[in-house]
């Protein structure tokens, strides 16, 4: 950051993405990441704080739209959102951090401790990415698959996230950490649609215990077409353990990480399905 020459506050998304075309441009949203950055290549800070439209949280009919600058505090107190999303927002940082951490920042940084993307995977959310060329809608799984930095290369900006709460109406989120204000050791989120006792749609996502939040298709496969029972959930949890190689984490052993995946995936699925 020491080589930054200017701070700019564009008045529109178009102006922002135009500025992001320049090499050395970096995005400033809440600032929790950028303020401690030592990036010597940053020349221009594109401060999004005047883009008031991006602060909007909209619930219209079947669709929820979270502007990229919606903060975790906004989510945490929103009345009309799935409880799992409120829980995920609550689990991030502490109050003064939640007051500044944004939806866009949680998605764009691509660090293991971003909690929100894990839940967004389970809600099958879509990321709205804006560039000088226009607006794209990228499923959050695809957005994260090859690191967000690559998804945003060439001066693209996350402008919103959207999802349909009705698509996976049973969902749950668990953050597992040493204390309430901590970097996650394991995040689990899941989303289910159950019809006539049979699981028709399933999303199982992990975070923190892997380098970057991701879905676990093997666990999802173990759920699809099966009855929503503790046995099924147990099988899916085992499938998740078999499918995921935990990230080395100096705080916990690999053996324990595997135990956590199994216990928490099962628990998240049971919680999503509600009291038996």
């Amino acid at each position, binding site marked *: *950051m*020491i*080589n*930054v*020459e*200017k*701070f700019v*506050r564009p008045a529109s998304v178009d102006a922002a993405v135009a500025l992001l075309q320049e090499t050395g441009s970096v995005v*400033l949203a809440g*600032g*929790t990441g*950028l*303020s*401690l950055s030592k990036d010597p290549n940053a020349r221009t*800070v594109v*401060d999004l*704080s005047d883009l008031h439209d991006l602060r909007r949280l909209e619930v219209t009919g079947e669709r929820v739209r979270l502007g990229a600058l919606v903060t975790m505090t906004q989510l945490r107190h929103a009345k009309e959102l799935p409880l799992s999303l409120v829980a995920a927002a*609550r689990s991030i*940082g*502490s*109050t*003064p*951090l939640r*007051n*500044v951490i944004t939806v866009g920042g949680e998605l764009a940084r691509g660090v293991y401790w971003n909690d929100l993307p894990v839940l967004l995977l389970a809600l099958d959310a879509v990321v709205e990415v804006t560039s000088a060329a226009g607006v794209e809608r990228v499923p959050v799984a695809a957005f994260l698959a090859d690191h967000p930095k690559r998804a945003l290369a060439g001066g693209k900006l996350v402008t919103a996230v959207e999802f349909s709460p009705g698509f996976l109406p049973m969902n749950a989120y668990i953050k597992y950490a040493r204390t*309430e*204000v901590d970097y996650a050791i394991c995040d689990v989120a899941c989303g289910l649609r159950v019809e006539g006792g049979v699981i028709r749609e399933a999303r199982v996502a992990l975070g923190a215990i892997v380098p970057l939040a991701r879905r676990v298709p093997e666990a999802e496969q173990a759920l699809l077409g099966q009855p929503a029972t503790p046995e099924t959930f147990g099988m899916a949890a085992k499938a998740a353990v078999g499918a995921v190689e935990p990230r080395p984490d100096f705080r916990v052993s690999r053996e324990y990480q595997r135990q956590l995946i199994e216990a928490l995936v099962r628990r998240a699925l049971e919680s999503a399905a509600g009291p038996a």
Partner: protein
Amino acid sequence: MIPIQMEINGQTIEMEVAPDLSLLDLLRAVGVDSVKKGCGEGDCGACGVLLDGVYVKSCLILAAQASGRRVETVESLGNVEHPHPLQTAFVEAGAVQCGFCIPSMLLAARSVIEAHPEPTVEQIKEGLDGNLCRCTGYVKQIEAVQTAARVMKEEDHE
């Protein structure tokens, strides 16, 4: 160097700052000593300020980012002659031991009461979760916030 201007406790300052200067270091450099540095990494919460009325950690805000904005620190609450009800409640409850974390925690407490005029213990615990205190065990501070909220409500009615 980046030119900035901001309002700090009602006074406007204009200066040039290094691009990587934090709001915390700026405030201490201009003599706002109530804002403390306990870690500089966004963890301890001793550097909390209100930025346009929102409680944030000033070590994680760039000075340039705060340009054009309104910064309030504990000096905006009250002083020894005319303390804010929160300050009185904290002192009387025994919530102030070493006091290093207190100026910031008072601002967090003010935000709690603003959001919840009659805060529950759970709401206070959530609102103060960014403020580490090693002296008190937090019990007295939670009591103090509840007391202050009552006093402020009564003052509102008067």
